[in-house]
């Protein structure tokens, strides 16, 4: 990991992102245990990329002004990973941490799936899989026109970006490919799709349900520039991939991130059964111990 700090662009602090990711993991398992239902597996696989977006300086946004003009947008198309998003938003100051305790409860801002009308920082409501990339394409198109026309300022001086995170199983939805064709045909320079390629869906391994085969090849054939992110749970690699994707402006970019479902919680990793089940109190204790241990190791290793 010696070359990480050199590979990472200025402004990216791997330690800070790792620590933020660890805190997100703690929050995820804790809120799920409190809620008694929800989706840990796909929240934990996505955590490091979301942490990189929010705490690695990739996403240009302002928690004190969620509707800031010219901001980047993040769409969690795989809305069932809401706990990961809520954990990031809380840690970033979009809303009080206490809200996390209300996840999935009557009257909560934190609905089972992200509700843009109830939770600041949620750019669009999701939960029905397969819809985020189309919405992101429309957003990217509108934002690109505003930018090209000079109607839009960006806090970073670069063109505002739209990041859409999808599950790998989610790619089985045809609407994703409709959106892929559309975005490629319009050569949207500010659209980044991130596939959380944890190889599992609800009913099992993707290859045992309906195989996605080579996901990069599919996006390539649909006219996208693709980046294979070998370890989507490594924040340095994630940052590199996201930075490259932002820089690429000849069209939309798909990052296919190889991740581990349930990452960071020993008994959840690669377990299809932990897709949509809350941990018990004992399991939570074990999960928190796992997360703390990994965070400690990471600290010792300088990450």
């Amino acid at each position, binding site marked *: 990991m010696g070359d990480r700090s050199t590979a990472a662009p200025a402004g990216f602090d791997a330690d800070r992102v790792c620590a933020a990711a660890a805190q997100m993991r703690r929050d995820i398992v804790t809120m799920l245990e409190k809620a008694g239902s929800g989706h840990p597996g796909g929240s934990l696989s996505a955590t490091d990329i979301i942490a990189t977006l929010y705490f690695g300086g990739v996403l240009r946004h302002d928690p004190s002004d969620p509707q800031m003009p010219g901001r980047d947008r993040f769409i969690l198309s795989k809305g069932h990973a809401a706990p990961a998003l809520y954990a990031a938003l809380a840690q970033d100051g979009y809303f009080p941490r206490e809200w996390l305790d209300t996840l999935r409860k009557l009257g909560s801002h934190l609905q089972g799936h992200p509700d843009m*009308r109830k939770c600041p920082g949620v750019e*669009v409501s999701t939960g029905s899989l397969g819809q985020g990339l*189309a919405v992101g394409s429309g957003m*990217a*198109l*509108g934002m690109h026109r505003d930018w090209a026309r000079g109607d839009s300022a960006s806090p970073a001086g670069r063109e505002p970006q739209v990041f859409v995170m999808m599950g790998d199983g989610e790619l089985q939805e045809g*609407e994703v490919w*409709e*959106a892929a064709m*559309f975005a490629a045909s319009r050569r949207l320079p500010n659209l980044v799709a991130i596939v959380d390629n944890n190889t599992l869906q609800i009913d099992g391994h993707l290859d045992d349900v309906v195989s996605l085969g080579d996901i990069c090849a599919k996006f390539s054939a649909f006219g996208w520039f693709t980046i294979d992110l070998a370890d989507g749970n490594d924040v340095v690699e994630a940052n590199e991939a996201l930075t490259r994707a932002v820089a690429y402006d000849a069209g939309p970019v798909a990052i296919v991130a190889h991740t581990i479902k349930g990452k960071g919680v020993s008994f959840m990793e690669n377990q299809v059964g932990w897709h949509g089940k809350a941990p018990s109190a004992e399991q939570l204790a074990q999960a928190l111990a796992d997360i703390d241990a990994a965070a400690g190791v990471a600290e010792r290793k300088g990450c």
Partner: protein
Amino acid sequence: MADTQTQSRPARATREAFGETLVELAEQGLPVVAVDADLAGSTTTKKLGAYDPELLVDVGIAEQDMVGVAAGLSLTGRIAFTGSFAVFGTGRCYDQIRNTVCYGRLNVKVCPTHAGLSVGPDGGSHQMLEDIALMSALPNMRVIVPADYESARSALRLAARVDGPVYVRMGRAKVPQVYDAGCELSLGGSCLLREGTDVTLLACGVEVDQALRACDELAREGVSAEVIDVYSVKPLDEAAILASALKTGRVVTCEEHMLAGGMGSVVASLLSERQPTPMRMVGMRDSFGTSGSFEELLSHFGMDAAAICEAARSLLA
């Protein structure tokens, strides 16, 4: 207000209002954009594209993507109108309209054309007779069913003006003009077209013309029919309907739509809960359409003026 001399002006289709009104709104500086799905010529959104190519986004034959792209555009401050035919522009993207547009209360106007029997020869696969049911069941959605070209223009202006999801149902069939240019529809409004005392005819869309004809025919038989255009199917003008039903004591609903979930069923629910009143419902009774001309089909399936008269007579019997 409405001009009841319906025969004086040329018949026009409600869809003809679409592209024209969008251009007018764009000219007024409203941030409108149309998203169509390979039917920009048929829906007339092409006119907006001719005015400014940036304002028409054609996503190809991909109605789900059409709604998603419109949703995304609305989230950049635009007023996004979707197109396509009613059968595909509602049914093929219902979940997208539900979970992205309505759940998020986005500023998307679902405005497909070619609703109902107006696609005639294309046949039952294309004759959308459930769209009012689909759209009315959706929270946050408003449903407007204009009767003619001028009221369609007004409906589209209204849709642009109010924030959030609106459904405007347009057709391909040329229908006689009922309204004057510059008429103003309102959300939750209705329009009293003929006053009467014996029976109330509540109609929307192309059935307004049929109801007016029925009113004339009934008048010849000595029956005084009140005709109300309930163009705002959701929200419904409950006060006007209750008042008229109280006055006449008999209600016939007239719609070019499936009875299940249609305007008539909403009226029946209202009356049953608030003021039970004998009713007859004119509309499609649980059947697909079939190939034929629009006029043939209206009579074949019992939705023409004659069918309305018969319904009214049976209430008066």
